[in-house]
């Protein structure tokens, strides 16, 4: 295998490993399927151009997240579009879910979409991207304690919403 094709193969392996998580992260960040795909593609194209600078492959995930966040910030610097598109997504419906479980999941999705970005983003970095609190703190440029507070509040809000409007509450409003 030539050096060039070896580099390409390594990059493609990187893309294979991370593209789904990055897409989900981008989607929940911007709330629009097409824009999320654009963001992730642009992220990988920028990463490809700078791949030779990635010395430590263990840092690849954080590196990709950094590129995506920068791209997102550059694009949305002054005008953040409303988070509106998730309702239109054809989301997977695992057959094992009962109607109640699906309704609860949909309610949870709407509640995640309604979280303030400062609570939603650390949650995404943790749950979707699998970052530790220390890594999230580095990404967001805030302290670890602040990250933990935001994560706690994010989950507390989601749980409260589920308890208030979930299967013990206003489930019929979902249909």
């Amino acid at each position: 295998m030539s050096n060039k094709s070896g580099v390409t193969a390594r990059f493609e392996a990187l893309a294979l490993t991370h593209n789904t998580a990055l897409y989900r992260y981008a989607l929940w960040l911007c709330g629009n399927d097409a824009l999320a795909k654009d963001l992730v593609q642009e992220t990988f194209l920028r990463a490809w151009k700078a791949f030779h600078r990635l010395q430590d492959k263990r840092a690849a995930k954080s590196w990709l997240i950094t590129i995506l966040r920068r791209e997102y910030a550059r694009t949305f610097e002054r005008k953040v579009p409303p988070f509106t598109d998730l309702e239109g997504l054809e989301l997977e419906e695992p057959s094992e879910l009962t109607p109640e479980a699906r309704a609860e999941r949909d309610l949870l999705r709407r509640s995640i979409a309604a979280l303030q970005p400062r609570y939603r983003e650390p949650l995404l970095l943790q749950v979707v991207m699998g970052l530790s609190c220390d890594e999230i703190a580095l990404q967001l440029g805030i302290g670890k304690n602040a990250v933990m507070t935001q994560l706690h509040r994010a989950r507390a809000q989601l749980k409260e919403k589920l308890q208030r409007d979930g299967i013990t509450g206003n489930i019929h409003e979902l249909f």
Partner: protein
Amino acid sequence: MNFSEYKRRLNAEPRSQDPELLAARNHDARYAEAAAEAAAFEHKLEQALAVPHDSDAFLATLRDAMEQDRKPGKARWLALAASLSMAVGLSVLLYWNHASYRSINHYVQEHYAHDGPELLARAATLTGPMAAKQTNEILASFGVSANPALSDRVRFIKFCPSVHGRGAHMVLSTTEGLVTVMYMPKTSISKPMLFEVDGQRAEVVSLELGAAAIVGASEQAGQELEAVLREALVAAAASDSVDT
């Protein structure tokens, strides 16, 4: 660690393997119950966030985009892109307000201002049509199939936002040069529209599935392209049956 602090830690790091948290869980049934509840909620959260993604299609599109980047002419494209960057940078701010398009006209204006000139410049550096495979994959995702009369003209294609969900941004070759086409598969119009975009003629035509905006073509080239689009962008099954 008191119970309140324990629950707070669980809410922040439910998957944590911190020995202190594990010891607390194993020491007291109340703590163990809270840990089980947290794990159950986390499972629901992970399921909710796991929106579907076609990784294979994405990687195929990425490979093609990487391939385009490698071809000769990249430097020329970069130079052209740099010269356009200021216009694009300004227009992007308007473009992303996609959720509030007032009309199809508004969408086409803002979409073209966002990356129309940049993609034309990129397409101009390419020597031939885009790989038919990529064109077909993108169009197939909308339930339409491209015939060779269209795919042979496609110098560039990518997914893009449209007025109603996802669409495709294409640069097509005509006898008069390159022309931008924005395909809106879920948009229907009752009659053709004609207006100006960035000083160029733009028309929106109705297709069997959706509508398309043709930007930068003369009336004659526009009619020529409209015929090609009408012929090509038909429901995949209908197209297959014609072929067989």
